[in-house]
């Protein structure tokens, strides 16, 4: 076997993709921030921003090894040790085989996934979460849920010759998840549902107006998410190649179709296509195509996106039927969209498109792949939901997960951060103190 040498093109693409994926988290802060009321926009954004801080630090200390180590030779976790990044800046990535990119580039790219996943959860518990409790939750949750689940899904093991050590069990089982339908979206969606149940409903839910305070912020956020998602999906090829281009194109067309699908449901059901609908539809399409983007043909991506936009537009109404306050529809968009995206590979997967993928039902592959996809989706869903319920329950019983009633009613921004988002007139007066 010839020695693999570092590829400048692949490395440049993965580093650029890492930056794109990082941008998604501040983008999410805007997307979520616009959707809450003016009195809690800063807290909503701060939940995303502090997640970048907490997860990045934990990643460089031990998170990377826990997710992508192979030393424990376990299918459940990587290794319990320091990440040890920087031992060799020239070391290449080995994830089920050598990639011609530095291990550090791979570690940086995967870090951004670990950052955005807990940030996604925050939308379920808007307006009412104690900030320090959230920051602690993020550290505990990534340690017990994200890092291990990332190992199950994304770790293909250290391959030397024909020997693979430390591959994750869903990866080894052949569950196809290119960029994180299970590890990121189902994981965050199930955790969001668990926390929405632990924290309870916002004061005044289904009685007071809780309409979004700034649709332009939501649209800026959606735009940044869409832009960054090209790094998320096309960067997951870990190289500048045809698969990256396929993932890029599929990401675009699925998202576009999903935005149209959501608008169609709104037009037929409510009479008006809305800007929140087009933004939400786009995100639901991005979610659904995430696991499938490198395994399906572009025509299939259009169908996957269209269906995602339509079912998510209907799914966001479920919280009113089942009476839980998933404030910004993490369940309706990420859990439902993520499950659909994972299952969709079982129908549309094509080994003619990507030789590492199996054929789904529509390509004569039978139900084998669909069965694997369903297993992967529901295993991650169940683990994340139960583990998050336990973590959330303990945090709620010890330090408390929710702000006081008065603070929630008056506005969490001032209570938790001593700031308010908007000063639209100069009538508040006052002056500088110190």
């Amino acid at each position, binding site marked *: 076997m010839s020695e693999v040498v570092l590829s400048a093109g692949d490395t440049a693409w993965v580093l650029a993709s890492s930056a794109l994926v990082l941008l998604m988290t501040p983008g999410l802060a805007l997307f979520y921030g616009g959707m809450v009321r003016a009195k809690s926009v800063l807290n909503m954004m701060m939940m995303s921003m502090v997640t970048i801080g907490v997860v990045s630090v934990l990643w460089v200390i031990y998170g990377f090894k826990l997710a992508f180590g192979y030393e424990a030779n376990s299918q459940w976790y990587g290794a319990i040790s320091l990440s040890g990044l920087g031992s060799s800046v020239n070391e290449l990535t080995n994830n089920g085989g050598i990639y011609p990119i530095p291990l550090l580039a791979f570690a940086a790219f995967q870090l951004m996934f670990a950052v955005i996943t807990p940030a996604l959860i925050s939308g379920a518990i808007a307006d009412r979460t104690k900030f320090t409790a959230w920051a602690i939750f993020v550290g505990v949750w990534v340690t017990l849920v994200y890092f291990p689940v990332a190992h199950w899904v994304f770790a293909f093991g250290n391959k030397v010759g024909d020997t693979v050590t430390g591959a994750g069990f869903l990866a080894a089982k052949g569950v196809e998840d290119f960029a994180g339908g299970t590890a990121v979206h189902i994981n965050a969606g199930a955790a969001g549902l668990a926390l929405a149940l632990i924290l309870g409903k916002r004061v005044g839910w289904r009685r007071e*107006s*809780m*309409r*979004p305070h700034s649709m332009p912020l939501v649209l800026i956020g959606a735009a940044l998410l869409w832009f960054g998602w090209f790094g998320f999906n096309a960067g997951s090829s870990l190289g500048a190649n045809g698969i990256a281009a396929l993932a890029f194109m599929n990401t675009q067309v699925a998202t576009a179709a999903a935005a149209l699908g959501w608008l169609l449901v*709104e037009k037929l*059901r*409510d009479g*008006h296509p*809305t800007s*929140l*609908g087009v933004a*939400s539809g786009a995100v639901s399409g991005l979610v659904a195509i995430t696991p499938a983007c490198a395994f399906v043909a572009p025509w299939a991506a259009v169908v996957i996106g269209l269906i995602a936009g339509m079912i998510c*537009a209907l799914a*966001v*109404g479920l919280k*009113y039927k089942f009476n839980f306050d998933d404030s910004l*529809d993490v369940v*309706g968009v990420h859990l439902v969209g993520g499950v659909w995206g994972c299952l969709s590979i079982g129908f549309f997967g094509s080994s003619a498109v990507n030789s590492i993928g199996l054929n789904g039902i529509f390509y004569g592959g039978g139900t084998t792949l669909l069965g694997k996809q369903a297993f992967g989706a529901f295993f991650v869903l169940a683990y994340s939901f139960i583990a998050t319920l336990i973590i959330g329950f303990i945090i709620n019983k010890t330090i408390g997960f929710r702000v006081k009633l008065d603070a929630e009613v008056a506005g969490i921004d001032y209570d938790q951060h001593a700031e308010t988002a908007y000063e639209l007139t100069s009538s508040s007066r006052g002056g500088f103190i110190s």
Partner: protein
Amino acid sequence: MKLVTAIIKPQKLDDVKEALIAAGITGMTVSEAKGFGRQLGLTEVYRGAQYKVDLIPKIRLEVLVTAATADKAIKVITEAARTGNIGDGKVWATPVDSVVRVRTGESGEAAV
């Protein structure tokens, strides 16, 4: 002297202002207001959830006129502010006891 007060649609402010000036009635005070009338607000839909919006943005327009001009002012405002749709607003006049022009100290109709 009369104070003519009008609640109108914000987008009709320029039309009303120009019509009053054209009719020789100058001077007005405008404030942004919110309220509802017989239609009781409107409904907005976000992700399929309907929210009632009770208080709709309006312009509150106040014009101080002599008693003789009040009816003309009301007529001009009514015609300029009308779209024919719900939410066009209302115009009314109230008697005013005294008026003083701050700069000169003039009072009564001379100050209007």
